[in-house]
């Protein structure tokens, strides 16, 4: 489940079901496939929420309730229409279930998106609103007006017909919000996005077929609805689903350029519609329609102008903050390191005996000071590392590297610490190759080994292994230490999150090792997680993209020289990192 296997299986099963749906011509079989797929998506939601324990439980529950109504609404329709062969009136009891189902689904997805907000972001809401309104104008022009003038529709029928495109406009606004709000973009995010787009396309197809009076069961656009259930179910089973409702703070406005493009498009829509009417003289505008559209065009234009100004200011502001932060980081790295270099150097010389022998008590005191100077150096290095990594300033030097070589380097660095702790490091044979920045991955592995050794008792074993699985390599580091209490598991990769606050004193860690490892793995497009049992031990896993062992990337000569220098340098700094 952790590796996304269940998610892939759901996706594959869903596609097979969709294919079968269009190959089979029996209405009953189609009805059964559709209902089973819907029910499977509901089950996937329940299993996903239970297994991945996402935040914002209320929102996920609302989504679930929406799906239940969906299944019920469709089932009613199928029972009458297909099994009992009774033509339902429009609107029917099925619509009475489906309209609230849509609403609940939107509220649920809205709730999930809401929990992604680290802080109120009125700009994103306004932007999404503008785009939703633009789609609403389109729906009004092509659908709603026609529903209103359709003599075949009853009053209630009109109401229900208008409800669907209105919900679609809201869906577009939510989709825009999902894209605009900063947050993690794992496979679950993209699956949900693709699913919503499928849903939207099918809804539009449905609306037009109702308009033309040609609605037929199992037409092409049904693939959109099936895509929604397939993608939704797969998203729920993927480990990254829990990050869908996780807030991530970002000072930068997300995707300002894409937003401006969307907003520009939205602003010109009413004008395009006016042009459309002007060109088509037979369907000329009534003065009322013309005025309404002009008013909409003007209002949209002003709104968009207002937001564009805001986005430009945001862009300027974020550049200014970025620059300030750069200056700060550069000053901190120099100004803090200069006195630290003196302190650490002087203490190191005295503690190392280079300045002559010391009385036992003095030697002990100097050792304490020296160790803490080391810790301060590590802390400064780690803080700068985290900062650079999270601001995206670190460039990974990706190339093909052998996992066993990465393991060899990591173990070489950590062996002294393991010897001191009396722990045995065991490496299982691995012949896979990965695409990675070797220095950074060694840093991630040594951080994880460091933790494993730190929490191992003398005589115990720490195992380093790698498993190849469907295009990726999963690295795992297992210990038999005290384990991590379940309630801490979701926070261990955050900064300064030590399970026991006294750990940083007793174990000399900085509380940043796991956060850095996660950042490194994220930069490689991998995932990192832990399985643990209290008093039995923990296993940390992370994944990296695999390469076939045949596709070695040859390093150019000048690259090799740069890499050599980098390696020497990081190895030099490695002392700081390693001795943690």
């Amino acid at each position, binding site marked *: 489940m952790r590796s996304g296997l269940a998610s892939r299986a759901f996706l594959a099963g869903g596609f097979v079901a969709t294919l079968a749906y269009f190959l089979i011509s029996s209405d009953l079989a189609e009805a059964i496939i559709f209902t089973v797929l819907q029910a499977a998506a509901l089950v996937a939601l329940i299993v996903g929420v239970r297994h991945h324990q996402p935040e914002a439980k209320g929102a996920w529950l609302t989504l679930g309730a929406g799906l239940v109504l969906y299944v019920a609404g469709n089932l009613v329709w199928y029972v009458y229409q297909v099994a009992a062969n009774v033509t339902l009136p429009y609107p029917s009891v099925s619509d009475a279930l489906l309209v609230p189902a849509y609403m609940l689904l939107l509220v649920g997805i809205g709730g999930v998106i809401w929990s992604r907000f680290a802080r109120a972001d009125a700009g994103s809401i306004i932007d999404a609103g503008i785009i939703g309104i633009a789609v609403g104008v389109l729906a009004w022009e092509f659908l709603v007006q026609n529903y209103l003038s359709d003599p075949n529709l009853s009053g209630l029928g009109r109401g229900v017909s208008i409800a669907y495109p209105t919900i679609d406009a809201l869906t577009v606004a939510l989709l825009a919000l999902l894209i605009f709000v900063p947050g993690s973009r794992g496979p679950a995010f993209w699956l949900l996005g693709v699913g919503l787009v499928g849903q939207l396309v099918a809804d539009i197809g449905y609306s037009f077929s109702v308009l033309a009076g040609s609605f037929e069961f199992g037409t092409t656009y049904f693939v959109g609805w099936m895509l929604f259930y397939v993608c939704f179910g797969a998203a729920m089973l993927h480990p990254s689903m829990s990050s869908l409702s996780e807030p991530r703070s970002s000072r930068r406005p997300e995707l300002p350029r894409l937003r401006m493009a969307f907003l520009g498009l939205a602003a010109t829509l009413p004008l395009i519609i006016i042009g459309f009417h002007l060109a088509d003289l037979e369907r000329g505008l009534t003065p009322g329609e013309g005025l309404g559209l002009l008013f909409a065009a003007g209002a949209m234009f002003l709104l968009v102008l207002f937001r564009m100004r805001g986005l430009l200011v945001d862009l300027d502001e974020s550049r200014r903050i970025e620059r300030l932060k750069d200056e700060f980081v*550069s000053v901190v*790295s*120099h100004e803090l*390191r*200069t006195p*630290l*270099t*003196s302190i*650490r*150097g*002087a203490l*190191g*010389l005295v503690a*190392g005996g*280079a*300045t002559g022998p010391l009385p036992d008590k003095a030697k002990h005191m100097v050792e304490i000071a020296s160790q803490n100077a080391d810790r301060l*150096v590590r802390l400064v*290095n780690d803080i700068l590392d985290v900062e*650079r990594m999270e601001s995206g300033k*670190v*460039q990974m*030097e990706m190339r093909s590297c052998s996992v066993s070589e990465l393991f060899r380097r990591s173990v070489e660095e950590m062996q002294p610490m393991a010897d001191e702790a009396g722990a045995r490091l065991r490496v299982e044979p691995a012949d896979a190759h990965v695409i990675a920045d070797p*220095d950074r991955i060694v840093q991630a592995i040594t951080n994880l080994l460091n933790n494993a050794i730190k929490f191992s008792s003398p005589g115990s074993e720490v195992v380093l292994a790698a498993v190849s699985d469907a295009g990726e390599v999963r690295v795992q580091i297992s210990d038999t230490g005290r384990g991590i209490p379940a309630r801490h598991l979701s926070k261990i990769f955050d900064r300064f999150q030590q399970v026991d606050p006294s750990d940083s004193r007793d174990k000399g860690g900085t509380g940043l090792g796991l956060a850095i490892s996660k950042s490194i793995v994220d930069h490689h497009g991998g995932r990192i997680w832990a399985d643990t049992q209290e008093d039995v031990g923990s296993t940390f896993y992370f994944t990296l993209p695999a390469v076939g062992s045949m596709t070695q990337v040859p390093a150019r000569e000048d690259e090799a*020289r*740069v890499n050599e*220098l*980098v390696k*020497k*340098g*990081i190895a*030099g*700094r490695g*002392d*700081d990192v390693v001795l943690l």
Partner: protein
Amino acid sequence: MKRVLVVDDEDHIREIAATSLEVVGGWEVITASSGTEALSKAELERPDAILLDVMMPEMDGPSLLARLRKNDATRAIPVVFLTAKVQPTERARFSDLGVDGVLAKPFDPMTLHREVAAALGWSE
């Protein structure tokens, strides 16, 4: 015995690096606290290597390196940068300048001589 010129504008760091190389490494050390002083000492004393701080006022490490490389008397002396700027991009830039090694600050005074020797390919 190796003779190394240590250049750093910070008195304390210069002293520690010098002590480390002299006492732990057993080398002979000459020091300079500015680029100008380093240029004249390098020309006069012809050390086996120069350990050079990157961030210095007036003449910084890279400019000093360029001056050393232009002078026939000092062109061949290997230079190792000692820097608090430990970014891979910085390192790549330094290596383009033709520096022979880059070491990070803070350094471990008990192993500094070994790191310098390793960067320059000296056998001990």
